[in-house]
Structures are given as structure tokens and as C-alpha cells.
């Protein structure tokens, strides 16, 4: 796996850790340990995105994050169900 994919994967792992913590906090809203983990993973996610953007340009997975520069890049593949190297097939 190339460095770019590794970084993308790392960001997705932090996303998942956070999603898991959010569910836990839904039923344990006063749990301080979980909240401190949220802080830690949010920071780690931010740092990983900064590292990605320094090397590869804007990281975006939502329309609101998609650069407002022409041409509009949102629809560019590969889409998530496609395997990256099948792009342009």
C-alpha cells in the first residue's frame, strides 16, 4: 500500500474509533475516560489530515469539504465500492 493510501486508511481508522466512542457516549454521557479518548482521537485525526494535505492537497469526503475551485472534483472516481486501480477502466 502506498503512503497516500496508508494515510487515508489511518484517517478512516480514527473516524471509526470516534464513531465507536460516540455510540458509547450515547449511553454513557458522563464517562470522562471516553470523552478524553474523543479528544485524543479528534486531535490524531486532525494531525493525520494535516500530514495528508501537506503532501497530497485537500482531503475531502463530503461535498462541503470539496474544494471550491474549478473544475468541481466531487464526482471524480474511484467511488468507495470500486477498487482504486480499476479507475478509468
Amino acid at each position, binding site marked *: 500500500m502506498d503512503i497516500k493510501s496508508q494515510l*487515508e*486508511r489511518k484517517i*478512516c481508522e480514527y*473516524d*471509526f474509533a470516534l*464513531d*465507536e466512542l*460516540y*455510540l*458509547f457516549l*450515547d*449511553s*454513557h*454521557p458522563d464517562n470522562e475516560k471516553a470523552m478524553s479518548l474523543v479528544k485524543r482521537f479528534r486531535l490524531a485525526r486532525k494531525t493525520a489530515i494535516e500530514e495528508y494535505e501537506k503532501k497530497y492537497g485537500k482531503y*475531502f*469526503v*463530503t*461535498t*462541503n469539504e470539496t474544494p471550491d475551485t474549478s473544475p468541481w472534483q*466531487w464526482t471524480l472516481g474511484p*467511488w*468507495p*465500492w*470500486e*477498487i482504486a486501480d480499476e479507475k478509468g477502466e
Partner: protein
Amino acid sequence: MWQYEKKLQYPVRIKNPNPKYAQIIISQYGGPDGELGASIRYLTQRYSMPYDDVKGMLTDIGTEELGHLEMICAMVYQLTKNLSYEEIVKSGFDKYFVDHTAGVYPIAASSLPWRAEYIAAKGDIIADLHEDLAAEQKARVTYDNLLRLIDDPDILEPLRFLREREIVHYQRFGEMMRKTTDRLDDKNFYYCNPSFDKNCKTKL
């Protein structure tokens, strides 16, 4: 409303197409205990829920299930790519192919299309949470059965991830059930229905 995130919750990269596996995995999309039903069940039940934390949990788990049905569809898509007519006929995929080509349509492994009878919204918090707990266990068993039948590591990895999520969701719904009964009359949980009765006394 919802905002799409252009990524899978867990990566799906299957190197070897296999229409036989696609035909059983598709059950976790459109089958009786699949991810489509899971998502619709939780998102639908939210409206009659009396407690904010239960509304939140159903919203968040129902949303995650949308991500899971996307993973299942990605598996079916990758498993049915670039098939020859010979492979289609030999694998028994021809019966699906004739109606849907390689489109991804929500059906069970038995070929029965998805139906609303797979889900429930009873409008009673205790009945609905029991439905959700049972649904997570049934989905877990379906993943266990798929794991018994499949031997490609590219498929097993994401299936194991999804199976694990059923167990976590079961745990979270169990906590919501406990919080709910703690708020009700402990001599008779069924004295009134907090999802419907205006003067149902609950300890919020």
C-alpha cells in the same frame, strides 16, 4: 438530513470475483436480517421514542447501518465483476442475472425481495427495543453462517468486522433497555406506554 461520506467504514477489496459467494452475501443487504432492514428499522422507530438518548442511539446506529449496507453492496459488486457467460451459468448466478444483470438489488439468499415485514415499529419502547436486540442477534448469526461457508480472506475480513458491529450494537441497545426500565414503574413496567400515553409517569 444526512450528509454522505465518500468512503467505506471498513475497506472492501476483493481480488477474485465469485458469483456463488455474491448470492449468499446479498442476504445481508436485502434479506430478513440484513443491513437495509436494520437501518430502516432503527431510523423508523425513532419517531415514537420518548427519551432523547434512545432517539440519539437509534439515529447513530441506523446511520452506521447505512454504511454497512454500502459495504455489503461493495462486496456483491466486486464479486460479480467481469463475469463470463460460462461463469454466470456454472455458478447458478444466471437466475439473478436474467432479472438484474450485475445490478445490486435487495434480495435474500433465497431470492425473496426485501420486504417491510422484516422490520417492526410497534410504537412501544419496550417492544421496539426487544425487536432491535433480537435483530442484532439474528444478523450476528447470519454473519456466523456466512463465515462458515466462505474461505476467501478478502471477504472474511470485512465480514468479521460487520459481525463484531452487531455485538457492539446489541450491547448499546441493552444499555438503552436498562436505562428505559430504570425510568419506569419498577413494580409494573407495562403500567403505561411512555411512547404513547401523555401522563405516563417516568423518572427522566
